């Protein structure tokens, strides 16, 4: 169990959205305000970690043929629990995310990690995998939200940050955010589906560029070392 390696993988080299290219529906749909992004990201993180731990705990006793069905049932259970808790205690988030909370059930990230990782790893490793992959996902959501909201409405931290009486975080979605430039100068199309597709495409392109560059650097380094040896 190599926590540092899992951390780097979850956030960068094996980032669920930017590298594994899964779980994209929600990423584009709800990233219109920072409140939505952080809320969704943390919900997915909690559900992912709980499911990872549960699946890993029972991995030796479930029959192989129906394992996917059992994964789905467990995930549906945790999603419903989070859904009910959000409706009861953070109704603003529940309203803002709407149908995308129950849709976390079919978020490929959760089933993907259960299938690819938790089946073969200990509870501890699965726990950290859930946390780090969830963090990677949340990070992507936050970056997308900031980008889309800034260009779309000139705002930072809509729904989450309130600077009227000193800086504070509003858990009920009422924070007006920091208006960086007047809303009338924003390209509100960025908050529409067009902006969603475009921002995600640009982010993945940036990630691919960074990974390729880093891979090239590694290759050059390995080659240089080989030449030194010779």
């Amino acid at each position, binding site marked *: 169990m190599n926590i540092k390696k899992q951390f780097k993988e979850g956030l960068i080299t094996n980032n669920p959205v930017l590298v594994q290219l899964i779980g994209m529906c929600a990423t584009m749909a709800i990233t219109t305000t920072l409140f939505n992004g952080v809320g969704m990201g943390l919900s997915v993180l909690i559900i992912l970690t709980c499911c990872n731990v549960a699946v890993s705990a029972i991995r030796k006793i479930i029959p192989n043929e129906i394992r996917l069905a059992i994964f789905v049932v467990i995930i549906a259970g945790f999603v*419903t629990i989070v859904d009910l808790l959000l409706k009861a205690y953070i109704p603003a988030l529940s309203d803002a995310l709407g149908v995308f909370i129950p849709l976390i059930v079919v978020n490929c990230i959760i089933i993907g990690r259960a299938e690819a990782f938790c089946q073969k790893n200990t509870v501890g490793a699965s726990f950290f995998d859930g946390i780090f992959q969830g963090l990677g996902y949340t990070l992507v959501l936050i970056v997308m939200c900031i980008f889309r909201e800034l260009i779309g409405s000139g705002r930072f931290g809509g729904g989450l940050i309130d600077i009227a009486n000193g800086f504070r975080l509003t858990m009920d979605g009422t924070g007006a955010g920091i208006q960086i430039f007047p809303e009338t100068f924003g390209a509100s199309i960025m908050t529409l*589906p067009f902006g969603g597709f475009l921002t995600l*495409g640009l982010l993945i392109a940036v990630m691919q560029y960074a990974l390729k560059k880093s891979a090239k650097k590694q290759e050059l380094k390995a080659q240089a070392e080989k030449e030194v040896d010779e």
Partner: protein
Amino acid sequence: MLTNIISISLGAILINNFIFSQFLGCCPFLGCSSKVETATGMGLAVVFVMGLASAICWVINEYLLVALHLEFLQTLAFILVIAALVQFVEMFLKKSVPSLYSALGIYLPLITTNCAVLGVVLLNVQNNYNFLESLVYGITGGLGFMLAIVLFASVRERIEFSDYPECFEGFPICLVSAALLALAFMGFSGMKIF
């Protein structure tokens, strides 16, 4: 009643297209659309599953979950129904249209995790649609998905021959093209027939 059905249909296909307006069904949209034939096959399978899932889940919701005040089991019940349905579609296709079965490959069982199928079922509940409206929304939602995926496949076949920066290879250039398609579909917004 008829005007309601027509406005739901047009809404699902054009005005609030499942992919370009509501973002439901993006994973297979991006993963399965490299060729027009595969896209058409996938689209038809999704139409079938969405229609059938809408109908069955409405019945289960109305006569089982709501009647027994078990609404909190909606997500669990719906996803189980969809998973079972996709299994049956898979078995059916394997026997009767094996070429389509092998062409769709891994993407057929992935219809279970297609946001559009679970999404349409949940939206039917949210919008309080009756049986006929749910069935229509399911089928026309699937048709909207199919329209989007076939259009996109034809665009992707052209992209293969264009020049684009190396870091955009794969998904990024597809997403940018999808953004432009979404822009086009925005032209339908606000359309009211009746």
